[in-house]
């Protein structure tokens, strides 16, 4: 008796019903040991999701010398005065205890990729897979006068949130009405593309309400605003006319720290408060391990696994990754999850997802309450082997209080996702 189409369909349905249930729920537990270097947005997320998605089968150790997590997102609001730095500061206890993550308060000084071992200041750790999430490092060889901690106290960068943010806020508070706040933006790529323009708005918001005769001069090394250009241009002109003075193509070439005087190729300016955001590259460990192979600045990775193109079994996530993706906190968490997902697959001898898709939403505050977004879905392009923005992405029509409340909700939810 020949089996007709209907019989085939019936038996197919039956076989799916019978076999899909046991096969799906009985995935073999994955085991292995992963060391994560860095407890920022990227590293902390990778650690949590590795534990969750391996049902606790993968042993995860995070190496992070800082005892607290201070959020860069929303830290510009400390300058504007609507947030305190303590609102953005968190511990790691919930993350560690909820997910059984081992934590080492130390620093990695060297990676031995052949032996699959990392050298700490005290002791060493071995791994099956290593994740490196060191954030950014400043290229002080371009501005050597700012390399010392003493110089950074007088001319803060405030581009890593914490003591530097507070320092800059105190200087702004001490500035006289009629004073000049000068800030500089490095050539891209740098951490958080719209961040410097948000900062200009936050400083201007504070000055408008407290010291209205003062000015913010923005020296941008880029030829134009690098993110949300139309929106920021309008906000500068409409909300902060006479306060924000935006100057493109203005690369800082020299700084006199003691007099807070800054020189570009065209002009010399004396500031009451000077905020230089230095040029950036991948975090120190990524460089010393030789993984920063793109322009000697950023790390080239396989976007299916985030494995370094230089060192085998070593994955790089977050701001250190090459400029193919914007350096945002949400992006860092998305990269972390693709990487964690791939490591769970690889340690279980499975192929990683061949076509990852994720979303990125980034808000900028232009006052204490109003915010605007840039948002995109990113999709792996198998021909180009990079993540590319999908159709439909873009920016807000205008800043709004509604988006301001969504931006606050974004922060609460991403902190909860990363740290609990």
């Amino acid at each position: 008796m020949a089996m007709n189409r209907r019989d085939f369909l019936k038996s197919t349905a039956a076989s799916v019903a019978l076999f899909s249930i046991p096969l799906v729920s009985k995935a073999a537990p994955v085991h292995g040991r992963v060391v994560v270097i860095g407890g920022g947005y990227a590293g902390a997320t990778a650690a949590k999701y590795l534990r969750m998605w391996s049902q606790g089968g993968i042993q995860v150790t995070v190496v992070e010398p800082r005892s607290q997590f201070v959020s860069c997102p929303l830290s510009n609001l400390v300058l504007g005065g609507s947030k305190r730095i303590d609102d953005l500061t968190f511990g790691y206890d919930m993350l560690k205890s909820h997910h059984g993550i081992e934590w080492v308060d130390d620093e990695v000084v060297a990676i031995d990729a052949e032996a699959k071992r990392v050298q700490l200041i005290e002791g060493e750790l071995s791994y099956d897979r290593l994740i490196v999430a060191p954030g950014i490092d400043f290229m002080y060889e371009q501005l050597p006068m700012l390399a010392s901690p003493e110089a950074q106290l007088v001319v803060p960068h405030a581009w890593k949130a914490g003591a530097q943010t507070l320092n800059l806020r105190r200087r702004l508070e001490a500035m006289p009405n009629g004073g000049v706040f000068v800030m500089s933006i490095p050539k891209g790529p740098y951490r958080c593309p719209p961040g410097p323009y948000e900062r200009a708005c936050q400083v201007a918001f504070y000055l408008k309400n407290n010291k209205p005769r003062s000015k913010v001069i923005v020296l941008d090394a880029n030829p134009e605003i690098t993110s949300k250009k139309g929106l920021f241009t309008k906000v500068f002109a409409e909300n902060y006319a006479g306060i924000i003075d935006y100057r493109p193509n203005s690369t800082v070439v020299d700084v006199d720290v003691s007099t807070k005087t800054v020189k570009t190729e065209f002009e010399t300016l004396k500031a009451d408060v000077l905020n230089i955001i230095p040029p950036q590259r991948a975090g120190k460990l990524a460089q010393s391990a030789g993984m920063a192979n793109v322009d000697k600045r950023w790390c080239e990775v396989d976007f299916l696994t985030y494995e370094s193109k230089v060192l085998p079994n070593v994955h790089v996530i977050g701001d250190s990754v090459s400029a193919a993706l914007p350096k945002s906190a949400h992006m860092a968490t998305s990269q972390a999850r693709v990487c964690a997902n791939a490591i769970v697959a690889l340690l279980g001898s499975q192929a990683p997802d061949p076509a990852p898709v994720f979303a990125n939403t980034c808000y900028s505050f232009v006052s204490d309450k109003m915010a605007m977004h840039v948002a995109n879905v990113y999709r792996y392009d198998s021909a180009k082997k990079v993540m590319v923005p999908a159709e439909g992405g873009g920016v807000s029509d205008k800043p709004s209080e509604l988006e301001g409340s969504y931006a606050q909700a974004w922060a609460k939810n991403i902190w909860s996702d990363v740290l609990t």
Partner: protein
Amino acid sequence: MSFNSLNQKTRKCLLVFAGFFMIFSHLPALAEGGVSPHIKVLSASCAACHGTEGNSVGGTSVLAGLDRAHFVAQMVAFRTGERSSTVMHRHANGLTIQEINDLADYFATQARQVNTLPPPAQKLVKSHGDE
């Protein structure tokens, strides 16, 4: 009873079963609840605004346990502009219909948690490593 002693129809059915077993066993292992690793990563990128596994800690919709048809209807309405939005139309338009359906399945099966909170804020302490 040997395979050959079974009647022809039963043998054919078993062969089809075996074929499916082979196909399934060569797919990437599905995680708990039948969610593919691909959808796990995509759904988790919603966490920045909607919380881990769709359990928002406030200010946005809880997606965990949301009725699947409701989820799909909202996403389609964001796509067409029938439902106005600030940012959701960007995400809804960037996804495929298949992904929207898969996300609906995923969130519908997540347990709603009422006790999720953001981490408590702390006083900043200066420690080594501060820059």
